[in-house]
């Protein structure tokens, strides 16, 4: 029982640090070209990246915190422009 509580506490503490980040990406009209965005974040061990081509929106959840400058750099390397970064 104690082990279960300990495990749950650990899981809760990890999820408490996880951050959901979403931002707009101007020019993101081609799904194949936008694969580069996922690749850039995967290289930083951020795997849970979703891309919405309709809304031109990228969202990820991770316990790894990236600064706005780093996100801008990653998206610039992918060939796009970031707008409106939101964090939850």
């Amino acid at each position, binding site marked *: 029982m104690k082990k279960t509580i300990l495990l749950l506490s650990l899981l809760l503490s990890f999820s408490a640090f996880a951050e959901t980040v979403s931002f707009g990406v101007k*020019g993101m009209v081609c799904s*194949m070209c936008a*694969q580069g965005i996922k690749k850039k974040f995967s290289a930083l061990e951020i795997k849970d990246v979703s891309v919405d081509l309709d809304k031109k929106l990228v969202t990820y959840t991770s316990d790894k915190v990236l600064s706005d400058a780093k996100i801008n750099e990653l998206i610039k390397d992918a060939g796009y422009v970031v707008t409106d970064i939101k964090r939850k």
Partner: protein
Amino acid sequence: MRWLALIFFPLIAWSHPVIYKDGWVISSMTMPDMTDAGASYSFSSKWAAGVNYWRLQDKAGDEQEYQLAKLNHLLWRYNGEASQANVYLHSGVGRSEWGDIKDRLAVMGGAEADWETRRHFVSGKYLHLRTSDYDTGIWVGRVGVSPILAEFQDLQAWAMVQAWYDPITSRETKITPLLRFFYHNVLWEMGSSLKGDMMLNLMVHL
């Protein structure tokens, strides 16, 4: 001189000649009288370097080979709310081999522009080639429409028409309707010119 048009084809068949930083592009093209294999590396989001190897059969039935090192540059990009536009510069140098001459120097340069939304695609390209035997250029244009707007991870399909004007080989504009598909990092195209020349292109982003 049909080979001259054919060696340009791999350079005009694909989408963006520069992709994301540290991205690799592996491509191949198959036509009745030509095969092509190429690879390029985008060392920034504005520059890419690569190589292409072509083997083709000319009208006389002789086999010709080409090796070309390329450098592509994204000169300008517009990232809009619902569209993207690009201007690229192409350059290359290499060798060709056929007939009695085993080492012809080949130099290539050109420019390309495109505009696309999720639904529409338009592109135009001019490439100029100079060798010891030839000094010529080719104009190529494409228009396309995507009938269904697929989600990011789903299969994306396009219907396109390519127009290719080659003043050296035929002085005719060659029209090729084709289908383009994307799935994740893989693109393939299938088409047939109005004269019945089949075309199959494959490209992978790594």
